């Protein structure tokens, strides 16, 4: 067993365990904190894939901003300090069956693909950030999706402020 394989197994187990805790724990603030752990583990998975910029961007965007937003939303929308009632539907076995079937289906379908057991090609990430930057702003690259994404974020910003404004 390679040390890298051991690290990957540890990271994957941490993320999956944290994800299971997110969807099952009845205490919502705990669920938000388990989500933070899952997102951290995902950043670790990105580092294993040599995508350093994406890993750090994941920590900044998800853990620095989105998790705090989720925790605020949980804390601002509860009536009492303790949660009340069951947090999953009574027919929870049906979604469980459905997601297990989806997982099995995805794995079976992908294992029939020829490139399923591919190994990592060589890659040096010395110029990774420069290439990504050039790709994002060059007209032959991805300039238009970049601009559309910024318009989307502006629209989301304005929309969120307007929707959540206290108009009484």
């Amino acid at each position, binding site marked *: 067993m390679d*040390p890298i394989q051991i690290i990957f197994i540890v990271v994957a187990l941490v993320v999956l365990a944290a994800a299971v805790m997110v969807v099952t724990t009845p205490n919502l*603030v*705990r669920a938000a*904190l388990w989500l*933070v752990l899952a997102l951290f583990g995902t950043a670790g998975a990105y580092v294993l894939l040599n995508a*350093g*910029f994406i890993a*750090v*961007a994941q*920590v*900044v965007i998800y*853990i*620095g*901003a989105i*998790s*705090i937003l989720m*925790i*605020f939303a949980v*804390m601002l929308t509860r009536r009492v*300090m303790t949660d009340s009632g069951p947090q999953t539907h009574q027919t929870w076995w049906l979604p469980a069956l459905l997601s297990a079937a989806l997982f099995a289906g995805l794995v079976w379908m992908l294992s029939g693909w020829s490139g399923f057991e591919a190994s990592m090609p060589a890659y040096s*990430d*010395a110029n*990774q*950030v420069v290439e990504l930057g050039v790709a994002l702003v060059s007209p032959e690259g991805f300039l238009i999706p970049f601009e559309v994404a910024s318009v989307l974020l502006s629209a989301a910003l304005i929309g969120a402020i307007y929707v959540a404004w206290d108009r009484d």
Partner: protein
Amino acid sequence: MDFLTNPVDAIREWLLGLMANMPAPWPDVIVNLLGVVVVASFGLGLVIILVWVERKVAARFQDRFGPNRVGPYGLFQTVADILKLFTKEDTTPDNADKPVYNLAPILSLFSVLLIWAVIPFSKDWLGTDLNVGVLYIVAVGSLGALAVLMAGWSSNNKFALLGAFRTVAQLVSYEVPLVISILIPVLLARSMGVHAIVDAQDTFFGMFFFMAPIAAVIFFISSIAEVGRTPFDLLEAESEIVAGFHIEYSGAKFAMIFAGEFLHAFTIAVLTATLFFGGWRGPGAEAYPILGWVYFMAKSLGVYLIVSWIRSTLPRIRIDHMLSFNWKYLTPLALATLIVTALLTKILEGQAVWYQSLVMFLSNVVLFLIANEIVKWRESKKPGRQVVGQPRPVARPPAEPAAEAEA
């Protein structure tokens, strides 16, 4: 002589020589782990000296001596403080969420120590050579906000929760000018790695402080707000919301939060010195790495002294003033500086360094003057103080001495 000029490399060679018989990856792994321990211990050990420096400096600004009884010049005062904090009772509030309550101070100290991994202490003396170092610093700095929220919520105390909300609002707001102003050295050095930013500050006039003074000042002010020191310490001052998010912490956990804050204050001094003043650069620093470390510590301590100076001098800022200062002044100014710097960097490509520095410095001065004019114009459009009602009666002597003389 070799050991004196470059102790880190000398010790490293000696350790690798000791472990030459071990199988292949282990000597490097062990030496790297020892390096991690050294950097973390350096940071934590520095807190002990920093608390003493802080108390002495604050005392001198207030025209008194400061601690001078425990040890020579009061040097062991911090040890006495730590002993006191560790022997205090370690209370946990009723109905608190125990795992989260215990994890919050650890996370708060952890997020500060992680920043020390990418700072270059001297030429080739650095933790790790990330080429996205600056973004890593921003990412790790935002973990502190999460720790504050965890601490405030798990204390099962409404005031702690309110204090935590306010703190997170301040921290998240001041991250915006921080990130924008940190992009300016990245722009000037053409790389996001911290070692590359230090390497690009070759000469004295090539220091990024001369090329982008507004960015340095905005970074400095936003970092002070991120740490939560005066004048931005509304959130944890004892006369305000009863010490804020760490009301329910006592003993060793409070010591961890306290140490994390002091270390964070020194870390922002280190970051300002590294990004804007050239870090370990100085005469003779390339040949003798130990001189580089001396310059680095001198510059960081100089900036830390300025942080202490500001703390001892300025009054606290009210929360609505603080937020309006951020969103209506710092963020637009940072964005404007970024745009102007990006334009000028492209236009002045290839000129001499002193010429670039001069033009960019002048452009920053012009931007600052324009920002001042805009602020003055905004203030003049506000309605002045209005007089409501009748003017008050004022006592006067009787009006007509001639009529009285006649009568």
